């Protein structure tokens, strides 16, 4: 059986969600991972969206952390500051976030690639900013990071630290007064990284089938350490893959982007209807 990297990433991420956890979730791969987990091994986990939706059972794939689907059949529909206040208070078990740049201590940049001779106010590439990612990185008990392993993303030094990982090393989170546990795992399209409990440095822990250590090292700017017990990522099960496709029959996350590029309104309408009808069967 063949799997796409997206399916691999969703499956790998979903397995890191435990039963009974409050899971603070972003859209895309984390969302699919959360739903797969709740249907397979974590039936009592609760998905939480930043803008106020807690425990929704959506029949539509949410397109953001705040669209209408994030409160469909929810347990709670409330305010953004209230939900992020609950994160700060320590109620959230696990958060899944992404980034444009990451360094070896798991610090993330989603604000700006400043670039040579440029400034924060006039950078080479402006990115969206923190959103709630810094709040989650600061206070969630566990943090999972999902991002593609590509050149200039796993860097020696960030242009701007948007969301703290272990900052400059052991003890720094405590000194900064951050209560969350910091990053635990980085899930990419080629491998999974974890963090050394003593040095807090990111190391290669699991490889996707067919990926080599050298291939990973080539994409990482710093001198990447490899775990003493390098594992291979377990492939998705058929059950996992079936569920993710029922949730995303139009391939928003799992499919190719170009497929949707020139969709007419009529096609969009038809696919959206199919999507919620398919999901209805799952509930």
């Amino acid at each position: 059986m063949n799997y796409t990297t997206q399916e691999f990433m969703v499956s790998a991420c979903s397995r890191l969600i435990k039963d009974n956890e409050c899971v603070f979730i972003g859209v895309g791969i984390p969302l699919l991972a959360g739903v797969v987990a709740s249907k397979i091994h974590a039936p009592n986990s609760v998905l939480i969206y930043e803008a106020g939706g807690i425990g929704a059972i959506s029949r539509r794939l949410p397109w953001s952390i705040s669209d209408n689907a994030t409160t469909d059949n929810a347990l709670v529909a409330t305010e953004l500051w209230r939900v992020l206040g609950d994160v700060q208070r320590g109620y959230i078990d696990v958060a899944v976030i992404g980034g444009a740049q990451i360094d070896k201590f798991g610090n993330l940049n989603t604000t700006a690639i400043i670039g040579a001779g440029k400034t924060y106010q006039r950078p080479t590439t402006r990115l969206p900013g923190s959103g709630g990612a810094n709040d989650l990185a600061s206070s969630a008990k566990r943090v999972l990071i999902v991002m593609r392993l590509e050149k200039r993303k796993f860097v020696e030094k960030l242009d701007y630290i948007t969301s703290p990982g272990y900052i400059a090393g052991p003890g720094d989170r405590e000194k900064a007064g951050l209560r969350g546990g910091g990053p635990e795992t980085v899930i990419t399209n080629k491998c999974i990284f974890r963090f050394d409990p003593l040095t807090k440095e990111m190391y290669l822990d699991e490889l996707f089938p067919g990926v080599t250590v050298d291939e990973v090292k080539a994409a990482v700017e710093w001198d990447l350490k490899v775990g003493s017990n390098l594992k291979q990522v377990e492939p998705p099960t058929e059950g996992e893959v079936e569920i993710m496709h029922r949730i995303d029959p139009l391939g928003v996350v799992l499919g190719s982007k170009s497929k949707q590029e020139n969709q007419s309104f009529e096609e969009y309408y038809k696919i959206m209807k199919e999507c919620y009808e398919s999901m209805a069967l799952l509930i």
Partner: protein
Amino acid sequence: MSVNKVTTLAEAVQGLVNDHDTVALGGILSREPVACSYELIRQNKKELTLIVDSHDESVELLIGAGLVKKVESAYVWVGVIGSGLNFRRAVEKGLPKHIEVEDYTNLAIGMRFLAGALGVPFLPVMSMSGSDIPKYNDKIISMADPYKGQPVNLVPAAEPDVAFIHVQRADKMGNAQIWGMLANDVNIARAAKKLIITCEEIIPTSEIRKIPNMTQIPHYCVDAVVELPFGAHPLGVAGYYWLDTPFRRDWLKASKTQEGFDAWVEEWVLSWDKFEEYLQKLGSDRLAKLRKLERDNYQIPRIENY
């Protein structure tokens, strides 16, 4: 109790918004006041400072049209479907004009609105320590809290001159009931010096009284009420309509160049006299389908008093 604040959006913007104002916008993706952004562009209100948490079209449009001097925000982008092209162009290249940025986190912006709502000058947050956010933002003051010595970051109250919030339902006095996610709207309403409520439906005050626990914005915060069905299009409103993704994709494609965006604004924002004409241009079949995509999944419940 019958003070009537109902007006048109054009009149509300004309009477309550000035050049150089600080402006806050409600919603996030759902219920973003997109039609209000259209009207600000139509009236060419200039040199605005925006205070927003995480916003999509409502902010992108204002930036692309050159109305914005500064953005105090946590996140400006276009959801999962693409980048914030106007935001990037303005910050990176100064087109159509450079905007100053001031970064926060969503919680920090939330606390700024809460401080404004409470009438206190600041609030503390635990976030942002160990990051570069305070380094580039002078308004964030780091201190050791005087009780336990913990590091905290103070953020100043947001006190926007004017705020726009699009809701499902309000009465003529301005009592507004919001369904689904609330974002920071309950605080934005109170933090703003002047508040314009646009809504999908004006309902009788007797309907408000059926479920007063759902009134998130009391009338005494409100300066103008505008009935504006589809006022968040192409974004969604819980219980009313779903995202018009093809429309979003089209304007995003147009935004790839400043000229493309300008032409899009000409066609979709400046070519009509009344917002109803914009809706006619979209077509009633399309609007009905957006409504169906939402209502097949969620409708505001019927409240039956005994």
